[in-house]
């Protein structure tokens, strides 16, 4: 029985990277309506950025922040150069998803070519384990959880208490009304790409720190959990992503302990299927169901 309680502890740690990724994904999808299949590849970019910076001697937590910034800029570049071309041509939701899938293939295979498809070890050194009842964790793992929770609190505060944050929420609900209210929606959408890219990069970096390894497809293993957490928590809802991430983190770790570690994606999609049966509107983008306008 203790091993399953320990699994809950691992689940909370795993939820940290899922949460960071899900907050970015839900913000991006909720505001732009672009179902970004390339999000996993961008998380991989964040993971590699963190790894390289750490190897070059940068403090690992500074590396996480810098990886977030680098991914943020890459995300904005992809949005404003590639995605915007197709939005102007009138691409619909499914077409945009396929275009982001193409972007993912280019990014991942480019990284695979550069790294010769090697897997690299992120050396965090030996750490003393702390215990809390049957749950064991390292200082690094504790910091990962604190980091994810802190970022959530900051983002939630930003969205609910600042003028730009409220404008982000308003634009997500109705970009036309936002525009005729005087909100500079183009600038707001740019901010959404930057923030979501930052969170995406941080998620990749945190995931790599958690599992100690990185390769050209690292983000892909996190991607299903991130998408499911974002959609289960309702697209556009950062608060919803928190609970969904925690549930998914714990369930997948407990499933792993039960001996079915390769089935965590199956569990994630199963959870999404159940959630969609309960509420089919979860798959619709934006904070409300009315809007399907893609904004890049």
């Amino acid at each position: 029985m203790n091993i399953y309680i320990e699994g809950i502890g691992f689940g909370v740690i795993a939820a940290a990277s899922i949460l960071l990724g899900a907050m970015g994904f839900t913000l991006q999808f909720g505001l732009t309506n672009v179902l970004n299949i390339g999000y996993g590849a961008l998380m991989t970019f964040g993971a590699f950025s963190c790894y390289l910076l750490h190897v070059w001697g940068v403090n690992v937590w500074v590396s996480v922040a810098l990886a977030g910034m680098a991914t943020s800029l890459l995300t904005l570049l992809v949005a404003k150069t590639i995605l915007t071309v197709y939005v102007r041509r009138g691409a619909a939701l499914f077409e945009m998803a396929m275009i982001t899938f193409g972007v993912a293939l280019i990014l991942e295979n480019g990284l695979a070519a550069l790294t010769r498809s090697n897997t690299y070890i992120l050396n965090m050194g030996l750490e003393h384990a702390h215990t809390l009842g049957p749950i064991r964790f390292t200082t690094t793992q504790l910091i990962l959880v604190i980091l994810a929770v802190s970022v959530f609190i900051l983002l939630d505060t930003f969205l609910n208490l600042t003028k730009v944050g409220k404008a982000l929420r308003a634009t997500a609900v109705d970009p036309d009304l936002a525009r005729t209210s005087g909100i500079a929606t183009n600038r707001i959408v740019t901010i959404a790409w930057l923030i979501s890219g930052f969170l995406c990069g941080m998620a990749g970096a945190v995931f790599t720190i958690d599992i100690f390894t990185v390769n050209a497809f690292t983000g892909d293993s996190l991607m299903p959990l991130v998408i499911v957490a974002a959609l289960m928590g309702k697209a556009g809802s950062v608060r919803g992503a928190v609970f969904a991430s925690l549930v998914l983190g714990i369930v997948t770790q407990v499933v792993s302990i039960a001996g079915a570690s390769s089935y965590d994606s199956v569990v994630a999609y199963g959870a999404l299927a159940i959630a969609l049966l309960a509420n089919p509107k979860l798959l619709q983008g934006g904070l409300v169901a009315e809007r399907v306008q893609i904004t890049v």
Partner: protein
Amino acid sequence: MAKLVAEEVSFGYGPLKIVNGASLQVGQGEIVVLIGPNGAGKSTLVKGINGQLPLIDGNLSLNGTDLSRISPQARIRHGVGYVPQLRDVFPTLSVWENLEMGGYILSNASVRSRIEEVLEIFPVLAPMRHRKAGALSGGERKMLAIARALMAEPSVLILDEPTSNLAPNVAAKVINEVVAGLASAGQAVLMIEQRVEMALAVATWGYVLVQGQVRLSGAATTLRETSDLGSLFFSGGMSIPPASI
């Protein structure tokens, strides 16, 4: 003082002209009603005035400032306020946050005092300031939509069918109390309305738009007594030349 002037304006979608050579004026303290059958181009005309659609032909100005080539955000700064027919508030934001978004172009320091001023105009909204806009009744929601548009202190307030989807008694309250009250306080109002009788009863002037063109215009009291308004609506107005009465 406030004078919105549209001269021979044409608006549409891409190459398709929906409004073709329409002219109208709105002065301070006036309620000007735009009426016409479905598909006449009324909403297209006001979307063109607020900048959601580009001006194809003609001239458009407010208080002498040319609005022809400026963005919707810039038009708000120049005094154009707009309340759409539907989707007129941000439902997941609170009443207070909706008003903040209406005052987005204002400085942070002046938003709070402006909200208090607007809530004095709509005291019914004051105790609901923390309630989500999506949880308001139809009448409360429309008042919030108008209050949101008033936040930026517009010279002219454009209302696209403010009584759409409202019960008759609530619609009467919106027209007779809210809209008429605003005009009596000096607000210039351009209003599209399907409840023609009710709207003309409070209006100063009216325009009848048919197939993208102003087919009839005149003082509201005169238009109310015009017996062929119905024929204009149902015949498409093609046999009746443009007229002013």
